[in-house]
């Protein structure tokens, strides 16, 4: 009987461990150990003899909620905490990436923040590379036959394009730096706002 109870605990914890994959290994180990202790204490205090029974374990696990839900809670809470403490794009992307594996909302936030950070970095790069490639880096306009204009951000590798016109000149340096940093900050704030919103909405769902 006790073996059966232990098996149920281990199945729950290994599912949780799997869903927390990607979080810091030490943190995951601590979470799993803490919850194992909680379940054992909970069953022992509810049972008459303090013995681990399968029914007691099931009741304790039900009160904790599904491992998937619990993992989502840990991930969004740890993302928020980490983001509030460090606010680095890499840290945010890493956590949103795990969130994306658990929910559709996370997936869209991942797409949005990847695009935001990508363009932010491109702007910063073009601002920096203009100093090295003064004739080729910058924002370029290419007039097309039908009167439309195609725009391109060029980092300046390669030759001067034949039929294009550089638009901003040296202004690309301050605009690239300020705009790039602005975009990175904006993406960070929007990603954090999305996580907070998601967290708040889930808390209302539960009850």
């Amino acid at each position, binding site marked *: 009987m006790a073996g059966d109870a232990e098996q149920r605990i281990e199945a729950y914890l290994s599912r949780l461990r799997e869903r927390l994959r990607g979080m810091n290994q030490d943190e995951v180990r*601590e979470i799993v*150990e803490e919850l194992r202790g909680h379940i054992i204490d909970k069953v022992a205090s509810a049972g008459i003899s303090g013995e681990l029974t399968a029914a007691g374990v099931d009741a304790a696990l039900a*009160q904790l909620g599904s491992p998937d839900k619990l993992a989502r809670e840990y991930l969004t809470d740890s993302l928020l905490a980490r983001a509030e*403490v460090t606010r680095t794009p890499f840290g945010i992307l890493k956590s949103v990436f795990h969130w994306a594996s658990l929910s559709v909302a996370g997936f869209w936030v991942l797409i949005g923040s990847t695009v935001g950070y990508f363009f932010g970095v491109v702007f910063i790069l073009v601002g920096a590379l203009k100093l090295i490639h003064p004739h080729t880096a910058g924002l370029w306009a290419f007039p097309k036959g039908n009167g439309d204009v195609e725009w391109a951000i060029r980092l300046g590798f390669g030759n001067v394009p034949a039929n294009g016109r550089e638009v901003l000149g040296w202004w690309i340096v301050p605009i690239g730096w300020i705009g790039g940093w602005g975009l990175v900050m904006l993406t960070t704030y929007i990603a954090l706002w999305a996580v907070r919103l998601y967290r708040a909405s889930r*808390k209302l769902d539960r*009850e």
Partner: protein
Amino acid sequence: MHESDAEDKWEVQLRKGCLELAILAALWEGRSYGLEILRRLERDSDLIVSEGTVYPLLSRLKALGLVRSEWVTSDAGHPRKYYALTVAGKQRAAEMARTWARFSSSMGALLAPLAKGK
């Protein structure tokens, strides 16, 4: 129906908003572990606390530097993770408690006529 739904949501949000302060308050007197904190909250507060919320919240408070943790072997034989307030956590709890007191006394004055049912 809609009205009572909105009322429920408001109450749930009110309780949730208090949870962080309640946990910090439960640790004010000294260190404690998850289940003990949960029981304390069930006994001494009107908060309906879900177990699946408290543990992630504790881990967030730790990441924010408001609590620290240590492992202690229990009489039952397995290790328990004890939490205690850090200096920053004590300051934050005291600050939140002051805000709470100010808020509740001003709301109390405003709500007094409603409580009398007039």
